[in-house]
């Protein structure tokens, strides 16, 4: 009834992981990866967000419905951004920006 109580050590671990990943994303930004800089930054950010959602926001222990709700939100965000690219990406069909080509 009272919901899942996570151990403090887990919270600390997640916090440390988030801090390390923050450092990593800054570090990666200073390395010239060409078009992959953006990709790396976004993957790290997505990973951090996933940690927060999964552990801090207790989605790991939440009902299927809650998980479905989260997934729906992300799915429609993907539709929004993806279909924007259908137009804006195809206008610049020959000259995509570095992080997309």
């Amino acid at each position: 009834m009272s919901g899942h109580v996570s151990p403090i050590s887990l919270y600390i671990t997640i916090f440390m992981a988030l801090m390390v990943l923050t450092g990593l994303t800054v570090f990666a930004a200073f390395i010239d990866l060409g078009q992959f800089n953006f990709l790396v930054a976004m993957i790290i950010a997505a990973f951090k967000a996933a940690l927060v959602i999964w552990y801090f926001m207790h989605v790991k222990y939440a009902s299927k419905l809650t998980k479905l709700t989260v997934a729906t939100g992300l799915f429609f965000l993907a539709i929004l951004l993806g279909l924007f690219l259908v137009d804006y990406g195809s206008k610049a069909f020959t000259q995509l920006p570095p992080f997309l080509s």
Partner: protein
Amino acid sequence: MSNAVVHADGHGHAHATHHSALQHHFDTMAQQKEAAVVGMWVFLVTEILFFGGLFAAYMVYRIWYFDAFAEASRSLSLFWGGLNTAVLIGSSLTMAMAVRSAQTNKRTATVNWLVLTMILGAVFLGVKVIEYADKFEHHHVPGYNFQWASHEAPAAGAPSTLLGAGEHAPATEGAAAAEGHRELSLNADQLQLTTQIYFSLYFTMTGLHALHMIVGIGIMLVITWMAWKGKFDDQYYTPVEMAGLYWHFVDIVWIFLFPLLYLVERHV
């Protein structure tokens, strides 16, 4: 469903004695809590799409004006941005601890963690004020006074000594060395036009994020007061958890804003 509706006792399922916080139209605390969690998540989904609109606009202009975005992003202070990221992640930890304390019937700890979270939130907003003031000073606020001067100091608000003392010293030095030698593909007029788009998005995004934080601190003041009054126990701590979900969401938005705004192209 229609007709052979057998009528049962509405309170038949709730065996246990009623918790004082159970609302009349729910049968059990579990149902009430689950409804609140799902409702909160549905609300957060609307927030995802709310910021999603901004991300879409950001994406379009970043494709078009990549150089301007890179240039303008380098004028932000990595020190303040990084510090704020750390502060906000820290506040997420304290928030999670506050929820945990509520779950485990620790009233004083709940209040303390909530207060600490609010303090960290206030620190974040304070840093934001410093950054905004810096933008005003440099005429980087979009509008009729917007003025972009190229080749200006990379991080006006952050002394490089502080950067050097930070954890990313080697990379930072490399970047500082490269600064100023960079050949720009954009001239002053073009930068004036396109960096303004960047700063319009910067202020809209960070402004809305800050607004969410202010709202979050407001909510937390109420929750802290309720916690202080002992309204919560291991059966009923939903408001604390809801405030936590909201706060973590605000943190996640920043997790994306930080690389999108501060780290467009640092390696030159």
